[in-house]
């Protein structure tokens, strides 16, 4: 199990602190989701991790030691807004990129063919990339990052523009690498996807980490809400002290309760008025947590 860690990573562009003291760890064997709005500093952080952008201060560690050029050569990386050589066959460019990383030509060729076949592109390995659909180009791009058993994966928006089937295919591929104990860090703005896939997530806002943990841990930090279901109209709950009604829809209300006393007060009042069908805690969705920590 390897760990890829950043400590106090900072990057300024003129007066702008694009990345401001960011620290977190992507642990081996886990998919770590990297979330944040546009301009939150995700891409800059990932580029610094890969050494493509110089850090103003802070460090990147691989298994506890500062990451070296030789380490990075064994990392798989997908930059954002990426492309391929449009006029070169998919197979040739996969082999070329792998050979630059020191993988022998024959090995690279066999592995590229294997990957392309698994992604259903075996027939098209010798077609120029510009003739492939965007989804298939994306498959070739991720293959480029996965060649040669990388020791860590840093993927910037790997799923953007992919249909759900393709996403599942790619997740399967990534799972094979986490199964080897490789840390996988990927950024995304598709929160539902991140919630479904990630063992761990890091939320960035204005260049700072505002949340870092497993989805369950983050949900605990989020504001707990309760759902109340009555027989009659629930409009009266708005008047109960210590109860904040987030949403009332006929007999159903979504509430935030100030404390346990407020809960008991609410329940007593409700029972006086009639039957109570349900009063249950609602786990906050990641989208809700995200809105809370980034607003």
């Amino acid at each position, binding site marked *: 199990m390897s760990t890829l860690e950043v400590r106090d990573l900072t990057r300024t562009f003129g007066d702008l602190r694009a990345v401001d003291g960011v620290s977190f760890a992507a642990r081996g064997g886990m998919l770590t989701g990297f979330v944040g709005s546009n301009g939150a500093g995700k891409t800059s952080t990932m580029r610094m991790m890969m050494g493509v952008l110089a850090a103003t201060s802070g460090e990147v560690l691989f298994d506890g030691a500062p990451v070296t050029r030789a380490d990075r050569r064994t990392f798989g990386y997908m930059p954002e*807004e990426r492309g391929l050589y449009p006029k070169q066959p998919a197979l040739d460019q996969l082999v070329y*990129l792998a050979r*630059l990383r*020191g993988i022998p030509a024959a090995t690279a060729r*066999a592995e590229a063919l294997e990957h392309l076949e698994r992604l259903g592109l075996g027939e098209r390995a010798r077609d120029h990339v510009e003739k492939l659909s965007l989804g298939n180009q994306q498959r070739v791009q991720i293959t480029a990052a996965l060649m040669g058993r990388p020791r860590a994966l840093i993927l910037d928006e790997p799923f953007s523009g992919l249909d759900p089937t393709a996403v599942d295919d790619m997740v399967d591929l990534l799972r*094979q690498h986490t199964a080897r104990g490789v840390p996988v860090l990927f950024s995304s703005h598709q929160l539902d996807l991140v919630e479904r896939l990630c063992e761990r997530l890091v939320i960035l806002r204005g260049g700072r980490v505002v949340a870092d943990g497993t989805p369950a841990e983050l949900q605990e930090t989020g504001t707990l809400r309760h759902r109340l279901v009555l027989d009659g109209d629930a409009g009266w709950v708005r008047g109960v002290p210590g109860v904040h009604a987030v949403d009332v829809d006929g007999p159903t209300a979504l509430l935030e309760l100030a404390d346990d006393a407020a809960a008991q007060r609410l329940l007593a009042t409700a029972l006086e008025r009639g039957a109570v069908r349900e009063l249950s805690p609602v786990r906050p969705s990641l989208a809700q947590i995200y809105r809370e920590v980034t607003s």
Partner: protein
Amino acid sequence: MTTSTQEQARLVPTPAPESPDDSTRGAWRLVMQREIVTRVMNKAFVIGLVTSLVVIAALAAFFAWQANRVDTSTVAVSGADSAAVAAATSAGEVAAAEGGNTEVEVLETADADAARAALESGDADAWLHPGDDGWVLAGQGEPGGDLQRYVSTAVEQQVVAANAEAAGTSVAELSAGAELTTEALEPDAVGEQALFFATFALSFLFFAGAITSGNMIASSVVEEKQSRLVEIIATAVPLRQLLAGKILGSSVIAVGQNLLFAGVGMVAVSASPVSMALPALSTSLIWFVVFFAVGFLALAALYAVAGALASRAEDLQYTATPMTFLVMGVYFVTFTASGTFLTVLSYVPIASVVAMPARILSGDAAWWEPVIALVLLAAFAAVALLVSERAFRGSLLQTGGRISWRQALRPQG
């Protein structure tokens, strides 16, 4: 369990790269190889190259044909007039002795009327007959210039011989000591016109090679930058290796292309009447190729920076403009320059690529002159490479808009 192990093995077939080729020192070779292969596989490039070769060969063939073409002029004379027959026959000999492209054939007819008829019907190109005062060479229009010259020489010789005999002497005695023979101190020296064309050809070879291969390296750099492939490459190998591979790859293409053009040109020259210029021309061409190879290293490095300063292919027309001006400037200045100006240019790096071989061709460069010019050019190339390498690294990974040379050379922070 067995299944899952097999599955695992099938899914990840590569042995772990615990000890992959750790050295990145040879990476430039991979880059160079890719540059050359993609270029040679590029249809537009191949079509352009073949078209150029065909045009060069066709032009050469046309000039050779033009030069070797034999015009036969038929002169009709009355068979009864022995003096006319002798004059026409002698005109044929004069033509043959001169070795030009005009051949004179004599058509003897029954009488003067038949000779005239032959001219009118087009069977003959001219009709030679005695006139009231000397000889008349008649044609449908004005008789051809070469033919006029040959006939007039022949007639003159004949008349002079007859007059000399009448005066009791001979032509040989009359013209003793008046013979003019020519002697070339440098039999290989190239004529002025041939020199102009050769210099123009050198300028053009430089221009075509530098512009096409220069733009090739610039667009190949911006292609990688725009697609962010360069970020993947940068994590795999040092950018210096990438730059070296690209420069060498495009140099191989540029020099190879010029060798091909020059080779076809030489074959054409050897088949033409100016083939005696071949030794001088080949010396000059060899120097040109050497100068071009060194000079193009500098140009390729600068063009690579032009690519790195751009963020998208569209930016290239701005970032590559200084290079285009440089190359076009060298092209125009070198093929029009002469005298002292040309001598100065033959030492100025980049301009010397054309100017020095041109001076070598004209024979006015001493043996040490190209050596000094080459050293200067190499020094310039070295400086250009160093500066370009720094600017390349300083701009290649910067995204968003065009980057200036100043920004590119600023110390990284």
